[in-house]
Each structure stands twice: as C-alpha cells, then as structure tokens.
C-alpha cells in the first residue's frame, strides 16, 4: 500500500512534465493550428540553454528558469516569423512536416556539437536532498517540479480561457482575417503565442535538466507520448491537456508498478480507447 502512494506521487511528478509540454503544444495547436513537431527539440533547447547559462555564463538555475524560456521563446518567434507564418490556412500536414524538419535540423546541429550522450546539469543547491515522507523518500527537487508546473499550467489556462486576450486568440484561430479586420494585430499576437508555447516547452526543459541527461534527443523520445496526451485531452483544449498530462503521469506510474513492460504502451492503448469512445478526445472540439 505504501509503495502505491509512492508510485502515485512519482506519477504526478512525471505528469507535470507531460502537462507542461502538452500545454505548450495545445496552446500552439489551438491558436496557430500547427502541430508543433519541433516541440521536443525546443524542450531540449531549453535544457541546453540552461546548461550554457550555467557553464558559460555562470548564471544559476533560478535565473535560467526565467531566461531560458525567453531565449528559446525568441528563437521560436523567429521561426514563426520566418517560416510558420507562411503556412497560415493550409492543412495541418504542412505545419507538422515543417516543424518536423525544424526538429531534425535543431537536433542534428546539437548532436554535431555536443554528441548524443549529453551533458550533466546538477540540482541547484537549495533543492538538493530529500524528505522522508514515511512511505517514500521524496527528493525536494521533484516536489518543487510538481508545484511549480501546476502554478504555471493554471496561470496559462487562466490567460487563455478567462481573459479577453484569450478570446482574441481563440477567435483568431478560426478566422484570423476577420479578427484582424476588427482591429487586432493578429500576426503579432500569433507570433507571441507561438513564443509562449515554445517558452513553455523550454521551461519544461529547464525543469528536467537536473533530472534527465541533457541530450540532443531528450525531446525526440518524449514528443510522441506528449502528442498522445494532447490528443487524449482533445486537441487544442487547454484544460484538457493539463488534466490529461497529470492523469497520464499517474496512470503511467501505476502501470510501471503493476505491469512495467507496458508502461510505454499504456498511453497509446488509452488513446485508442478514448478516441473510440470520444472521437475528439476528452474535451476536444472537432478537428
């Protein structure tokens, strides 16, 4: 029983990465109608930027949490301005392929310069160590990850679903021309949104740097699972992807305990089941 609590908690921690990443994807899909395959690569960049900040600039983890998402976000906005912008109104397929290409380029370049086995990044001193919860030893850093990502997720949700800015964003997704004709600078808004989504990915990257190896392919391995989370939650649904992210972490954690061999597969089984029952995901609107 105690072991089960531990697994639940650990699942929640993983879930917070899923939630952050799928949230970024959902924001981008919801607002730009782009399936951002580059998300994994940008997540990886977040971790690398944190590494550089520390090792080249002597800038610590806390500042990296702030600076890395901004740097990667700006990189994302440049991508949007120079490339993604031209895909507005086209089929999803093109956005997917373009971002897939971008992912290959980014990953390839990083692999060239930093090899494939990666670089070390250690846990900030303030968050080292752990607490004994009785049923498990909880590293402080993991606790921090859960709380911090929860806060970020909810703030993002509020921004998009509950503010006028969010209404603009949602409307612009459907009919950017018309929204622009109402007097809103849609292209700039879209660029910023992409920056936001990308920044979220980078933030997840920084968060994960102390836990996972900082490797060029760290995102590539994750991205398919995160896609599954977004689809299960309902493409483009903000709350859907947050909840599904956390829930999936927990379900995966339980699978790791009861039937570990299936823990990578369970996501896809769930996705098939969910789509069979609810064709547009748990909370999604029609594609």
């Amino acid at each position, binding site marked *: 029983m105690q*072991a089960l609590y*531990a*697994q639940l908690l*650990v*699942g929640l*921690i*993983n879930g917070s990465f899923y939630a952050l990443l799928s949230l970024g994807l959902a924001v981008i899909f919801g607002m730009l109608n782009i399936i951002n395959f580059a998300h994994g690569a940008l997540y990886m960049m977040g971790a690398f930027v944190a590494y550089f900040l520390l090792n080249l600039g002597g800038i610590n983890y806390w500042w990296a949490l702030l600076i890395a998402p901004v740097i990667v976000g700006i990189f994302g906005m440049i991508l949007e301005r120079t490339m993604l912008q031209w895909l507005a109104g086209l089929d999803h397929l093109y956005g997917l392929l373009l971002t897939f290409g971008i992912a290959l380029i980014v990953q*390839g370049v990083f*692999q060239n310069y930093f*090899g*494939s*086995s*990666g*670089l*070390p990044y*250690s*846990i900030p001193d303030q968050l080292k160590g*752990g607490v004994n919860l009785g049923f*498990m*030893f909880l*590293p402080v*850093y*993991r606790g921090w990850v859960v709380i911090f990502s929860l806060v970020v997720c909810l703030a993002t949700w509020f921004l998009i679903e509950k503010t006028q800015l969010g209404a603009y964003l949602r409307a612009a997704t459907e009919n950017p021309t018309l929204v622009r004709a109402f007097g809103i600078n849609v292209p700039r808004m879209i660029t910023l949104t992409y920056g936001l989504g990308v920044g979220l990915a980078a933030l997840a990257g920084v968060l994960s740097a*102390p*836990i*996972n*190896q900082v*490797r060029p*392919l*760290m995102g590539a*391995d*994750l991205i398919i699972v995160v896609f599954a989370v977004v689809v299960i939650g309902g493409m483009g649904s903000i709350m859907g992807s947050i909840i599904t992210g956390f829930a999936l972490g927990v379900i995966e*954690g339980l699978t*790791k*305990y009861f039937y*570990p*061999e*299936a*823990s*990578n*597969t369970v996501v896809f089984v769930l996705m098939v089941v969910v789509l069979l029952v609810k064709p547009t995901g748990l909370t999604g609107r029609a594609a």
Partner: protein
Amino acid sequence: DDKTVKIGVLSDQSGLYADLAGPGSTLAAQMAIEDSGLKAKGWTIDLISGDHQNKPDIGTTIARQWFDVDKVDTIVDVPNSGVALAVNNVVKEKNGVYINSGAATSDLTNAQCTPNTVHWTYDTYMLAHATGQALVKAGGDTWFFLTADYAFGAALERDTTAVITANGGKVVGGVKHPLNTADFSSFLLQAQASKAKIIGLANAGGDTTNSIKQAAEFGIVKGGQKLAALLLFLTDVKAIGLETAQGLNFTETFYWDLNDKTRAFSKRFSEKMKSGAPPTMVQAGVYAGLLHYFKALEALGGNPHDGAKVVAKMKTIPTDDPLFGKGEVEANGRVTHDAYLFEVKKPSESKGPWDFYKLVGTVPGNQAFTPLDKSTCSLLKK
C-alpha cells in the same frame, strides 16, 4: 600477388552510437592502416566509411553495395546489434571479412556465427560474467535488476543471473522497463524497497545514464546500495559527470589510461579527434581488429579476396596488440582478451578531463568470454 585492400567502416555516424563509435572508429581505422606499415611494403589500402543510421536495411544496402560496386574486402565496426546481425549475413553471402567491434550481441559468435566473422572487444556474455562475478566475490551477493525490456536486456539479465547464482549470490527481484524510458523513479523506488545490495542495470545508452542520474537523486547510493552498470562506455561517464557517476561499477575491455601503450595510442588519437576525446573501447577494437587483420594478410602474402580464407588465417595467429594485449581468435570468431572491472572515481580523485576510472579487478580472457563448449556456433560442430 594482389596487394590491394579496401576497408569499409560501417558505423552510426549521427545517432546514439556516434560518440562511442562513429567518426572515432573511422579515425581508429586510419591509424591502424598507418601503423600496420603495409603501405611501405607496397600495399594499397583504401578506406571508406558509411552511416547505417541504425537501420538494418540501410546497413545491408550499404554493405551489399560496398561489396558489389566498391569492391570492399572488409567491413569493420557496426555498432547496434540489429544492424550488426543483418550485415553479418551479407558479409557471409559475399564472402567478405567482418570485424565487428561495436555490437553487443553474443549471437554473432553463437547461433549466427559465420566463417567470415570476427567479433572483437565485447559481448553481452562477457559483460554479464565479468561484472557479475567480480561483484558477487566482493560481497555484493543480493541483486535487483533494472532490465531494458528487449532481447539485449534479457540476455544481459539472464547471463548475469547465472553467474550470480553460480557464485552463491541471489537475485531478489527485478523490473523490466521499456526501451527509452525517460523516467526511472518508479523503478528505482522498487529497487530501493528490495534492499538488494547491488542494483544491476541491464540496459544501455540513455536508459543507463538516466537511471544512474536519477538513482543519485533518490539517494540510492547514499543509502548504501551499489549500482552496477552492465554496459557503460567512457562517453557515458563523461555525459553523466563524476559527481553523479562516482562509485559506479562496470566492465570494459579497454581504457585509455591502462598502461603506457594505451596512453601513447590515446594521446595520438585524441589529438586528431575534433572533440579531443580519447578512444572508447569500441574504437580501440576497430584499431586492434584491423591490425590483426593486416597481420593475417601479410602472412598470406597478398589479398586473396576470399573472406573465409583470411578469417581462417586470423584464427591461426594469436592476437597481440598494444591496446588489448594478448589473446586469440577462437574458432567461432570470438576474440578473447582480458576484461577489466572499473569503478568511477570521485570528482576529487580525478586529475584530468577524461580521468574517470579506477581499476578494480581483471578477468583473464579465457574466463571472461563464452567457453567454446558452451558456444552454439555451428562451425564448432564438426
């Protein structure tokens, strides 16, 4: 006689194994050609390299094309078991020479052995035996396995378990995790709960590095348990960092800082590497394998362009090279040489950027690898 030779280095140039093989293997092959001294004796030796991208069909297509079009005699390196086995068949079909250094699968010298294949450096059997035996003898008699859930992991776990029990140890539990798992905390919690003295990592690459890193986070080593990585390369240790990797036990058959000869070679090698890295055991294996191959050619007095014949010759000459020392190519194609159990140094003990290992023990070649009577190679059943 014909004194032209063409060698193809088939490796993973861009993926997971690019650091431990890849461009470094090509460099090692070049150095082997230079060091063989054959050029001065009137031989022409050409080298080409290719990227199999970890895809068996790309690997076989390149191999086949090399034999058919480029008239390659010998293929070396080939990390990634799947590709290695696929190429194995092509080499046999084309009667070339295959000196594999990069792949872990023991099948190359067992079920799938061919008269054209020589397997240098390491294999799963050796890794399991060397590590398992040494650690149990050192008192690590209860084990818990984190096993990558596919053939490679299963083979490692199976072989190690056999050694552990044979030496009086016990496996108290284990968990199979899927390939390319990002998060190991669940599994580590289970390992922690098992109270086993040794946590055996029967996995590879990113799975191994991430489990080591996260084990440190969960205070596993601090809590008194020891980690034993069954397959770990120098580049992995570099990637994890000493801070996290310290105290880790594992087996390799080569380390740059073993003796004067290895140091001399490594110095020359790392000067030519873009990254300045010393050779890994796979790259060292490419070098040593080729040196031995050249010896056989020289003994034959020319290149017969008949792979089986050359490999047969290689089997008759004992191996002896600056990197792996003395050993032999057995009838099944397995090369035996000493294996070393290492422990990762503490950061305070490390004196240079690549000064990572402490030698803990040596397993002689004839004990480290599959004994011939246990090999299932069909070449042996005559």
